[in-house]
């Protein structure tokens, strides 16, 4: 299968690879997918509790080139956004940006799910602190 230039570029130079401390109250972690399905994405956000702005994002992905590119792109996009804005990112935007073929759409879905999972995790942490 031929990959789009943007997928290849993200695969060769993935942005924001790494991990943030999971226990940090300002860090939200989303881990989605399963090894049996061939895709696991971990996406982490560091959120400013005052402004709800995402100040840093990191990812690690087990999956095909399109999965790696989707999660790399997701980290780029969420940085500087508020958590509510990040929650609104749609997988179709990732499909368009990376020119993903139909068989790779699930990679973009997974990236969207990872963002949402990370945001939810951060919100849960914030809520339990508020109690």
């Amino acid at each position: 299968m031929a990959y789009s230039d943007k997928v290849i570029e993200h695969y060769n130079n993935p942005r924001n690879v790494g991990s943030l401390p999971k226990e940090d109250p300002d860090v939200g972690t989303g881990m989605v997918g399963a090894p049996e399905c061939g895709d696991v994405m971990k996406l982490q956000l560091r959120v400013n509790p005052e402004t709800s702005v995402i100040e840093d994002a990191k990812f690690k992905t087990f999956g095909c080139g399109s999965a790696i590119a989707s999660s790399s792109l997701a980290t780029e996009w969420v940085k500087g956004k508020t958590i509510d804005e990040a929650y609104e990112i749609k997988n179709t935007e990732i499909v368009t940006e990376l020119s993903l073929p139909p068989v790779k759409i699930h990679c973009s879905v997974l990236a969207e799910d990872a963002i949402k999972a990370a945001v939810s995790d951060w919100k849960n942490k914030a809520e339990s602190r508020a109690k």
Partner: protein
Amino acid sequence: MKLPIYMDNHATTPVDPRVLKQMLPFFTEVYGNAASRNHEFGWKAEEAVDKARRQVADLINATPKEIVFTSGATESDNLALKGVAQMYRQKGNHIISLPTEHKAIGDCCKRLEKDGFQVSILPVRKDGLVDLDDLRRAITDKTILISIMAANNEIGVLQPIAEIGKLAHEKGVVFHTDATQAVGKVPLDVQAMNIDLLSISAHKMYGPKGVGALYVRRKKPRIQITPIIDGGGHERGMRSGTLAVPNIVGLGAACEICQKEMPQESVRMQGLRDRLQKRIQSRLDEVYINGSMEHRLPQNLNLSFAYVEGESLLMGINDVAVSSGSACTSATLEPSYVLKALGVGEDLAHTSIRFGVGRFNTEEEIDYVADRVIETVDRLRELSPLYEMAKEGIDVSKVSWASE
């Protein structure tokens, strides 16, 4: 060294230049129809076909009359299974095969099941081999055919063909083997191994694509098959259609070269394969071999690189042609059914890579491929959340993953 490097010789092989040279005159000079009995063009074509028939027969210790030319191993498999099923229908309706067979066998079995035959797919052991006791127990008085491949196309595992043949003949069951990957690579002897039908493909052994053969035993016992293609009655009625003389010449030439060079070539292939394996495993941890190393084609290596998805690995070694058992690289979006049959977990099946070393690979290429694999796996493991978890001491297989 020229890039990209081809190391996917189970998928297909390049035509050996010596084979091509023998084929060429049969396109433009000796272009007669081998079935034309009344002029020199036909006689010369027939002569060439006869020679090729002998070359093919010699490689597997058959006689020329037992060789039926086909369009390739898929057709040979179809002809063997459907042909035997039809012909022996009065005798019984039970067929035995394995889950690791090529789709050409698996899908024929499914078709025959729809047509009222009963097919037993026996499990294989963790090393990919059939359990002979299982096979013995599976044979009933209704069993007409056992079809078990000689060498597997993904993991290169060699089945105990001689033992299976002996058992089949004791029980009076026809024995077919899809030997597509084995012919010309390891010794095969249809007499010593009691093989009744054997499928051959040219393009897996440095011959052209679009031609193959089916060996059909003529004596002790005489095997009869119903043709699946009707027409001019070529190939003693078993396979109608004008013979593809240049391709057949190519198949014959490929067989002769394989027969002559097999003793040296198989040693060289195994040397290259072992070098690849050692180099990779000496520098990467958690690399698992799929299938038996003891009963295996010398050309084959199939490794799972834990925590690194196969397609992403292929993408990283983009100047090397190998293949993966990952779902992403298959048409069905399912990971390799062969690895599944061995009990390899789907997580590891997604990380598998098949290396097929071939006649034209060099030591320098082996080292280059190994190094590219090593650096790419290292890089992708740094990217892998699973590798990170494993390093933290978490057993990834015990995590309950939220499914998508």
